[in-house]
């Protein structure tokens, strides 16, 4: 998790609310309702047990993944129902790939698999240098034809955005166009969103909550390494 002086300053002004509109049309927040709010509350509560944490995290992930899939392109199509009537439906285009950022992004893989049974999944490992706090890609593995696919990039927590910026950079290096990337995220700070949208304005970002402070314990608690 990269952290800079700027970021520390930003968190001090946590009380300041920010408007999701300022990040442009490619930044989307999961339509919130009481149910989503409850999930977020449980995940942020420090008294939540690990088993509850994983259970509710998986639920929220599922909702975010479903919403991310809504960002994929589709075409109209009509089918015949068993009653013999015609239903005007729509069809999703093939050629998608999921990419998770190790380690916390992997928590979202199951959610994606539950929605798309045989989707290909690539991985990126980003680590921050202990001295410079600079994020750096250590490992990346993708399907060969990733450049021709739409990429669902999964990373649940963004506080500074550095990790994601590096990951998108590596995707672009593999020839993936910026507008083919959809970033699925659970919690992000305005600071991170600002950093990412200014770096990659054409990328679609979906999060469930925009808040000054991100629950940085997510990966530790989800995988039980705290």
């Amino acid at each position, binding site marked *: 998790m990269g952290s800079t002086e700027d970021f520390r300053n930003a968190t001090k002004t946590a009380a300041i609310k920010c408007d999701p509109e300022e990040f442009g049309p490619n930044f989307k927040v999961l339509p919130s309702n*009481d*149910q989503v709010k409850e999930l977020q509350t449980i995940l*942020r509560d*420090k008294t939540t047990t690990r088993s509850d944490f994983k259970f509710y995290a998986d639920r929220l992930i599922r909702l975010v993944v479903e919403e991310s899939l809504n960002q994929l392109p589709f075409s109209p199509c009509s089918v015949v129902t*068993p009653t013999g009537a015609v*239903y005007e*439906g729509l069809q999703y285009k093939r050629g998608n790939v999921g990419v998770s950022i190790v380690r916390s992004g992997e928590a979202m893989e199951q959610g994606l698999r539950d929605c798309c049974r045989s989707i290909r999944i690539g991985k990126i490992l980003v680590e921050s240098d202990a001295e410079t706090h600079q994020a750096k890609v250590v490992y990346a593995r993708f399907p060969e034809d990733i450049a021709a696919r739409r990429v669902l990039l999964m990373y649940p927590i963004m506080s500074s955005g550095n990790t994601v910026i590096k990951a998108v950079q590596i995707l672009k290096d593999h020839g993936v166009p910026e507008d083919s990337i959809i970033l699925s995220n659970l919690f992000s700070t305005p600071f991170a969103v600002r950093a990412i949208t200014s770096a990659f304005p054409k990328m679609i970002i979906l999060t469930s909550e925009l808040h000054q402070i991100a629950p940085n314990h997510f990966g530790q608690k989800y995988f039980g390494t705290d």
Partner: protein
Amino acid sequence: MEFNLQVSLHAPVAILVTLVNKLIDFLNLATKSANQVSMPRRRCPSVADVVRPQNFRSSSSIPNELEHLNLSSIFPALRTTEGMAANLQTTFEPPSSASSASSISDSSDLGDVGQNEFFYGCHELPASPPQSPRPQSRTSIKSPRTARKRTTSVNLSHKKTSAESVLRSHKRTIYTAGRPPWYNSDGDYVRPFIIGICGGSASGKTTVATKIIEELDIHWVTLLSMDSFYKVLNEEQHKKSALNEYNFDHPDAFDFDLLLQTLQRLKDGKNVNVPVYNFVTHTRESKTKTMYGANVIIFEGILGFYNKEVLKMLDLKIFVDTDADVRLARRLQRDIVARGRDLDGVLKQYCTMVKPAFTHYIAPAMVHADIIVPRGGENEVAIALIVQHVHTQLQLRGFKVREQLALAYNGQPLPTSLFQLPETPQIKGLHTFIRNKDTPRDEFIFYSKRLIRLVIEYALSLLPFEERTIETPQGQIYEGKRCASDKICGVSILRAGETMEQAVRDVCKDIRIGKILIQTNRESGEPELFYLRLPKDIKDYKVILMDATVATGAAAMMAIRVLLDHDVPEENILVVSLLMAESGVHTIAYAFPQVRIVTSAIDPEINEKFYVLPGIGNFGDRYFGTEPTDSS
């Protein structure tokens, strides 16, 4: 069964002999005093007939001592007619293999007069001195009274006093399950028809009730017996009852308050917990029997017309008037053969309590009756008349729902209690998969599961939430929300609703799930309730009622009605389904405006088979793979 065997092994000879003698005495007395029309004169049966009731033949292994028993020594009345005695013995020699099981279980059905026939002629036997040198000791030793007591309750519990799911008659099997709509098309509760049956002890009330149910040919009838409402006895009373001195026929022996309460709830269509009375310990068992109001409720009991409040509730009052001798004969048979009591006790009880109670409390109640049925269950004319009357009454109350539902509410704006999921491309895409008739089953299941999950998540967001402030591991305060109620339960409407259960379990840990089976009657096209299992305290829960598709809304309405009958507040019910027809939405919303309706799609039409158009087809069949093979 155990008990039957015991009787047939040891006691029958002694008991029967005693019985015959006593009966002769008693009937002579009774006929004089009772001032009844004299018994029809029948052919005096041979002794062989007399001694050949089933329980005699029942044992396939009568012990040797019994076989060689000199019957004439203990049966002096018969000694004179040696031919008969010989005849008697021959009935023993090749012990008939007639199964004891069937014969006795029949005899517990008090209505079968034919079995009792051998009593009729008894008083025509040569009058014999009652003080015969019968081996009294033998009777008392060989009749294991204590051992029998335990079986008494077993026998009683088999009595058809409570609503069983299946009622068998000699002609056919009637299911008292499968409840047709008990509300009209506005979802309002329609008052049931309550039939009260009163009559002396062993007059054949149950038989009349059973015959009525049989002839009515409707599938859901509740049969409530007054026997369930005996008061709990204290120790002293218990002792008295063991000596046959406790008066079970007096109005004070019944808990009329509880009876009234129960009857009122049944009349209101609510479920009731009817106590199960244990006739051995004379207490109520901890387990109660749950009954539901039905279109027809039959209430029977010896003092059924005694209480004025109860009397007011009855729509039709039937008095079963059976000859006193016949009743006594049946009672003797029931108490001695089926319940294992001894003759002296039974007669003492009859003379000191049963008969006076009949004269004082039961017979006068006849004036309240609308119909008096002489001869009980065999009176077919009377039963036919009663059934005709009940049918007319039911029709007047308008129990015909589905067709009315399908035609109403065309082209009206959708109700405010409807919550449709935002139609995102994903949801539309999922619908495209599951509506396509060519979708293979694995894909159908996969995509419907995804859709179900979304619908359930959406439904949960409609529950009440409250503000909650929590502390995060980052040390900061977070204003969040938590669900205001932790009592949420799912209820699925079989079979298609069950497909949604897993999704509910996936989102709510340890959720309780109830089930309701509603089937469409193929002849009438009406929904019928067949099975019901709900969490005990369901009234305290928010209920997510699940059905995959809602067409006319008839099944969903019935399920909602069931929940309301279990005291679930209307606003606590969420009907959740994948696909609804517009008319179904209107129907539910109109009948139950506070029930919230959640669905992922609304289709405009319903076809003549009540399928939604364009629809999904039969969701349950496609999900479970039970669609008929001829469909292309």
